[in-house]
């Protein structure tokens, strides 16, 4: 045990040295920020590890049984809403996203949408669950205001537990303060 502790100590020292040199010591690969249309977290039928690349507009089979994307691909294909720090109000730039999904849901009453609220990494984990829930609820209310039935919507908060982008800076944080919209079967 003592020997492996020494080994770990040397690895720890090496990592520290590498960190000083490289400034970027993480062993695990950093996930790329999802660009529009590819590997959007939460896109698809909610399965963990859903790794499909989906071009904008061609959403066959990913919106729930028996549906095609309603209307133009654009706003409906966007299924992440981003938030400002410590805020859960939906910014005007997402109004069309809300409308598109509201239209999709009211047109296809069999569809169900899960709203997953997330926060950035700052603050305490359990309080962040509350903030994530606020964001999911904001989207839920916005959709209901546009006629979506309560029964079609569920919310879940992941707080800070499922960051889309890793990093201790605003660039990463901005991509994690989000509500993901996930159609479920």
């Amino acid at each position, binding site marked *: *045990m*003592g020997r*492996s*502790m020494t080994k*770990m*100590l040397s*690895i*720890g020292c090496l*990592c520290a040295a590498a*960190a000083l040199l490289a400034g*970027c*010591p*993480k*062993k*695990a*690969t*950093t*996930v790329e920020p999802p660009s529009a249309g590819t590997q959007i*977290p939460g896109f698809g039928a*909610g399965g*963990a*590890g*859903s*790794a499909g690349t989906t071009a904008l507009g061609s959403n066959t089979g990913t919106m729930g049984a028996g549906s095609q994307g309603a209307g133009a691909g654009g706003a409906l294909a966007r299924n992440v809403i981003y938030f400002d720090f410590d805020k859960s109000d939906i910014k005007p730039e997402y109004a069309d996203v809300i409308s598109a999904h509201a239209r999709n849901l009211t047109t296809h009453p069999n569809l169900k949408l*899960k709203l*997953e609220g997330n926060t950035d*990494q*700052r*603050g*305490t*984990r*359990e*309080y962040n*669950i*509350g*903030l994530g*829930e*606020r964001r*999911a*609820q904001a989207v*839920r209310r916005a959709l209901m205001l546009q006629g979506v039935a*309560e029964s079609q919507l*569920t*919310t*879940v*908060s*992941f*707080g800070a*537990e*499922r*960051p*889309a982008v*890793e*990093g*201790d800076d605003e660039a990463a944080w901005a991509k994690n303060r989000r509500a993901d919209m996930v159609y479920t079967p």
Partner: protein
Amino acid sequence: MNKALCSVAVLGLSLFCSRSWGEFVVEVTRGQDDAIPIAIVPFSPPDTDAGSFDVARVVADDLARSGRFKAMDRKDMIEQPHNGAGIGFDDWRRLGNDYILVGLMVPQGQDRYNISFELFNVLNRQRLLSYQISANRTGLRLASHQIADMVFDKILGIRGAFATRIAYISVVGSLPNRTYRLIVADADGENPHIVIQSNEPLMSPAWSPDGQTLAYVSFEDRLPSIYVQVLKTGERRRVSARAGVNQAPAWSPDGRKLALTLSTRDGNLDVYVLDPATQALTRITDDPGIDTEPQWSKDGQNLYFTSDRAGGPQIYRIGIQPGDHPRRLTFQGNYNARPRLSPDESQLAFVTQEDGAYRIAVMDLKGRGEVQVLTKGRFDVSPSFAPNGAMIIYASRDRGRGVLALVSADGRVQERLVASEGEVQEPAWSPF
């Protein structure tokens, strides 16, 4: 107290039997200036074989890690006595030691050892401890921690917490392929065992008062539920899977109830008390803000919790009897959250925001509520007291990684525990 955890494969989650994983590196970042110098002489048996366990090393590391002791470097030991008769006190005093611990490990048969040890005050040559422990090979590490406890207690008059455990969450990988593990290890980070592993988040480990069971939040099926799991057997039971939020479990002092956070359909988070056996539920807070992170008082009559009913999160206390109104406890700054009571209730640890940084602070509950900020990081969260109240373990970030760190309750000692793999977060220190 050997933690043999048995394995059951359930629902794509995995529970492992005694599988060692990863290790910690301890970095002391700030020691105590007046640390007591002590010589801990190797206990090696007369016929030292290369594979024998180094009891004295574990004892020395424990005492040094407390920040209160400075262990003499072995290289400087000109002789290595194994009992009092062999100690040349003047020499040890000249080398600057206030205390000396000597001992001997004598094998007894295949797998057993008799460890005898003595603790002396070097200055007045008084023998403070004389003791024997018998242990088999797998029990040597625990025996070493127990020896460190005895030395710590004898010299400082404080019960040692070296033979305790920590639970924490380890996260490896990036979305969508993250692996979350709830791990229990010795308090020094050695001997880690996976309690449960999942592809979805695990959170908020909470030790039952008897140290036998952990409650935690699991996002299996992408929905949060609260589970309780018996560590010895791996047997787990889901105790709350209500629609919406099921979070922040906290055991009552008698181990019979759980305080927790649930949500209404409209996403209003509040604190409740659940009897897991009967599923009887009592609502404790009823307020549109986020009310969460409950913690029980020692008498089981009050709950400390976080609420943002006043704007930003602050810490409140409420009696669990119906009709009691919450009393706000924190008034400095806009963010005070996640209360944790010290075992003797003299201090309340919590997370405070100071100049944009999240830090661990303690409030003096016996005096005038004075607040002291203990840490200096940017993202210090999740404080948990050791059961002797002397140290607080918490989560921090270092060079882009989640790490665990330790700070003494008075802020004078600071250490970092860096895992060999991935991120670590949400530590919880076991009871005695």
